[in-house]
């Protein structure tokens, strides 16, 4: 498993840079720092996590201090500071979902994947965690999978099994 201190040399592709540049045009002159969250999402979609190397490169692009990127990336819960599984199952764990069985779903996922919350399976394909309210309480229990945050509602143990099977077939 990749250690956080192993810094791989990364170079943002021309395609990625042009996406960054488009985003910057949404804000007034000199306010390009507002592009930081959209850019972090694009970088995580590309690499699966936010590495220190990536953060330094983002800071250079936006012409801000590295600390300004570190403090934002570590504040917002969607950004991973360590590599994750290829597929990260994020299950809502807040009150209304628990009233209708979210905790059972999480136990089932833990048992099926064989890893605890936050850990990655040995083959590197899956990890999972509980997240806070996903604003879908009437369709509970629910889970999402990044980077497009495809949404799965009205979960049962059967539908979770089917989902994991489908994902395995994509690998």
């Amino acid at each position: 498993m990749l250690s956080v201190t192993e810094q791989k040399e990364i170079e943002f592709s021309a395609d990625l840079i042009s996406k960054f540049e488009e985003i910057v045009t949404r804000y007034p002159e000199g306010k390009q720092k507002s592009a930081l969250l959209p850019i972090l999402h694009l970088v995580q979609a590309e690499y699966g996590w936010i590495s220190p190397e990536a953060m330094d490169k983002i800071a250079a692009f936006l012409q801000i201090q590295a600390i300004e990127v570190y403090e934002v990336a570590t504040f917002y819960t969607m950004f991973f500071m360590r590599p994750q599984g290829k597929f990260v199952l994020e299950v809502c764990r807040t009150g209304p979902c628990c009233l209708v069985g979210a905790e059972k779903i999480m136990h089932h996922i833990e048992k099926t994947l064989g890893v605890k919350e936050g850990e990655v399976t040995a083959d590197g394909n899956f990890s999972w965690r509980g997240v806070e309210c996903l604003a879908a309480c009437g369709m509970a229990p629910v889970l999402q999978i990044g980077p497009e945050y495809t949404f799965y509602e009205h979960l049962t143990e059967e539908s979770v099994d089917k989902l994991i099977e489908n994902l395995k077939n994509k690998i």
Partner: protein
Amino acid sequence: MARKLLLNNINVSGIHTFDVYRQHGGYRAVEKALKTMTPDAVVEEVKTSGLRGRGGAGFPTGMKWSFLAKPEGRERYLVCNADESEPGTFKDRYLMTHIPHLLIEGMIVSSFALGAKTSYIYVRGEMMPQIRILERAIAEAKNAGFLGKNILGSGYDLELYVQPGGGAYICGEETALIESLEGKRGNPRIKPPFPAISGVWACPTVVNNVETIAAVVPIINDGGEEYSKVGIGRSTGTKLISASGNLNKPGVYEIELGLPVEEFIYSEEYCGGIANGKRLKAVVAGGSSVPILPANLILKTINGQPRLMSYESLSDGGFVTGSMLGSGGFIAFDEDQCIVRNTWNFARFYHHESCGQCSPCREGTGWMEKVLHNLENGHGKMSDIDLLVDVSKKIEGNTICPLGDAAAWPVASAIRHFRDEFEWHITNSKTAMEQNYGLANYADPLPKLEEAIQN
């Protein structure tokens, strides 16, 4: 059949597309506002309507708009708060998914009213599908000439962008949202100055909830006075209620404000009663931050009046015997649910979401989570209950933003109304680990006011 002002066309096939939306009367409000009204006239209609912020605070929207400073040479901004994260609330997700053009139309009319030339819809990062839907709808509207330069030949220019969040409940607080939009950590700012004076990039800014902006469309189409005729008292218009928990038919319902709570829970037109033949034990009526009420007090006020779905009626009794309409996140608990466990769950939520600026919130939410965890897992002490109330009182009112209050109120109200259940967890800690406390007398006739005040 109750009137629907927002969701009347929700079941029309293709209503999420520009063409179908337009065919069904969409973008008439833009035409009416930009071609026949002044910006101030639009603000007046919203004032007349009595519309109140639908995100949770219920502040009169027209009044908020009228506070917007208009200094020469400074841009003004309208930012839509689509950071929906209040547990129990999912109406904005529903609206953006199924009828995105309603929000976009509302944004155009509202931006025009406020003199904004660039507006943003700040959507929580997890709602990536909704971000894609909105971006597509914005492109459609732009192609059709409803965004961009010189809209409909009116001389009004507007650019509209979607800005993603990154997973932070606190960014639903308007100043934290503005900080996030500026590319910073979501730390709320001290108010004053209010965003109307100094908001995004220190420019005058209005931040409004998705549903509030959407409501501007029927208000302009039918007039503010017509809107104000729907509802009751100072709770005018309709509200989207997000119903969840142990109900037969959870989901999003558009109600006329003033609907009796009992009808909302039990009638087939709405939630269809408690699932699995169980009985109602408790309700959180307006999102996790509002006081929880036992069944007897959610159905009737302390004076025995039927409780209505309105700002005034749900607040009847203050926090002693009442609650709040809040975001309209209506969570129903059946007789098998454990109030202590749920209180711990909410305490964990607020601790996780605290931005950390204010010591009472940062530390207090952590202590409440820990003490409640002990109580739920058989390690509680009798003194823990009053300790929790004490901690909650020391957070309340001592923070820069309302998250501290929002964390304190669920704990204080759970203990106020369900103290015997908490005590049972301590005196019968072994049994409490194996079975739930049950319904007790929570559904019985109303407590006396003196008893309620004592707690």
